[in-house]
């Protein structure tokens, strides 16, 4: 789990079953394991009112584990962008009493949280658990472009090509960490690139 550094850096918890009638799970890759671990502590019949939306990793693993929980609805999506219309629709029609559970990478948790915030769910009332890759979603503060799955420090902006220091400064509105030019004074100065967010 990510360590707390500066105040905007999100800290995640462990999914735990909440009282309520409807439970919406959104997970990617190893986030599935957060759901199945929680299922072991959930009361009988919990998943009868649950919907699981899952983005499998490139290895396609964990689908069977989630199906075995027998949720009322199970939906697979190839990417977050592809599940977005469905998620917005679900939240628009939802009532108070729906509980949200987010498991997996920070990119997935942050983006799902962003949509849920807009729908009126307070971020402190969402259940989150970080699993799998530490890869970050990064906004270049110079060109404002978003680069997904950043694993190195520094990282190259996929839009403007600047070499960026990936800061812990996080924006909940953008669901992204801020990347700031690391060699603004002298572009010929290229610090070594390390795998910082495997």
């Amino acid at each position, binding site marked *: 789990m990510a360590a707390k550094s500066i105040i905007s850096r999100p800290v995640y918890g462990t999914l735990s079953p909440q009282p309520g009638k409807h439970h919406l799970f959104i997970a990617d890759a190893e986030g599935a394991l957060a759901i199945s671990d929680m299922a072991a502590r959930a009361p009988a019949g919990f998943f009868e009112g649950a919907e699981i939306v899952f983005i499998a990793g490139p290895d396609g693993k964990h689908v069977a584990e989630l199906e075995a929980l027998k949720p009322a609805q199970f939906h697979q999506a190839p990417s977050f962008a592809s599940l977005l219309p469905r998620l917005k629709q679900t939240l*628009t029609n*939802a*009532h*108070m*009493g*729906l509980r949200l559970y987010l498991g997996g990478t920070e990119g997935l948790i942050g983006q799902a949280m962003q949509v849920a915030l807009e*729908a*009126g*769910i307070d971020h*402190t009332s969402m259940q989150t658990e970080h699993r799998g890759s530490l890869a970050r979603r990064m906004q270049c503060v110079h060109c404002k472009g978003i680069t997904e799955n950043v694993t190195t420090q520094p990282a190259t902006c996929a839009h403007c090509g600047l070499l960026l220091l990936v800061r812990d400064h996080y924006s909940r509105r953008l669901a992204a960490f801020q990347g700031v030019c690391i060699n603004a004074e002298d572009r010929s100065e290229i610090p070594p690139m390390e795998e910082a967010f495997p």
Partner: protein
Amino acid sequence: MSTGTTKLDVVVSDVVPVNELVTRFHFRRRDGDLLPTFSGGAHVVVEMRDGDRTRLNPYSLMGSPLDTREYTISVRRDDVGRGGSLFMHRSVKPGLEMVISYPVNLFSLDLRAKKHLMLAGGIGITPFMAQTAQLAGEGGNFELHYTCRTASLGTYADVLRERYDRRIRLYHDDREERIDLDRLLSTQPLGTHLYVCGPAGMINWVRDRAASLGWPSEAVHFEHFAAPQPGLPFDVTLAVTGKTIRVDEQQSLLEAIEAAGVDPPYLCRGGVCGQCETNVISYDGKFIHNDHWLSEEDHRSGCKIMPCVSRFEGRSLVLER
């Protein structure tokens, strides 16, 4: 001067009987200026000089926050209480000069909400008078469910119906009308915030049902002013000043401390805000904790007390201040 309780010199500009139990009081500034701005749900503490006794009771501001030429409060007469509401009903007349605190809001609207669902019981309607006025001015989305004993005790029900029509739903106990709470709570759109003000039993019922139906606590707001309960007299020593004072039957511990010339901080005087929390140095006896602020663990530890509503029975009590 106490924290957050800066005083305002006011004059009673009008006293209006509302029904057999409730009277409305209007205050204006003595210097003719506008009163400080406030937000829906705010209260003021009214100082009542009753002979050699001073009582300080909190009352919700019920006027529109858009109009600060005057403040209005509504007081329900309590014939078996400690006498504050009786003093207001019997002795406060237009022209009387009084002192009230600046407004404090411990029951504010969460303006991020997509919709505001309000539940009022009896005199618990007063903060919603200001909140609905505030939201109506901003085109806000709200719905108010109001339970009262009988139609004639439905304080301001007619005013609210007139102003907001179908956004107001009334329930009368004598006609066996009850809020279908589970249905109401289960059909609210995502992003709704819930506000409840009324008797303790109603607040507990609503909070309980909301929690078990999956409402996150962040979306549930409530206000309950517990009036200080009378009880056996007791003595208390204040360690910092070395004073030993007597708390009489009808007096709260906080009032006794103030009467002894100490100026402790307070905001709500109803056991909910935490401002007057005091450390206990030593005691021999038992506490009667009436507050909603301290945890059960704090209550058991005997290390803390809320002097605004809590009492003590026993041989000795020493408080820090």
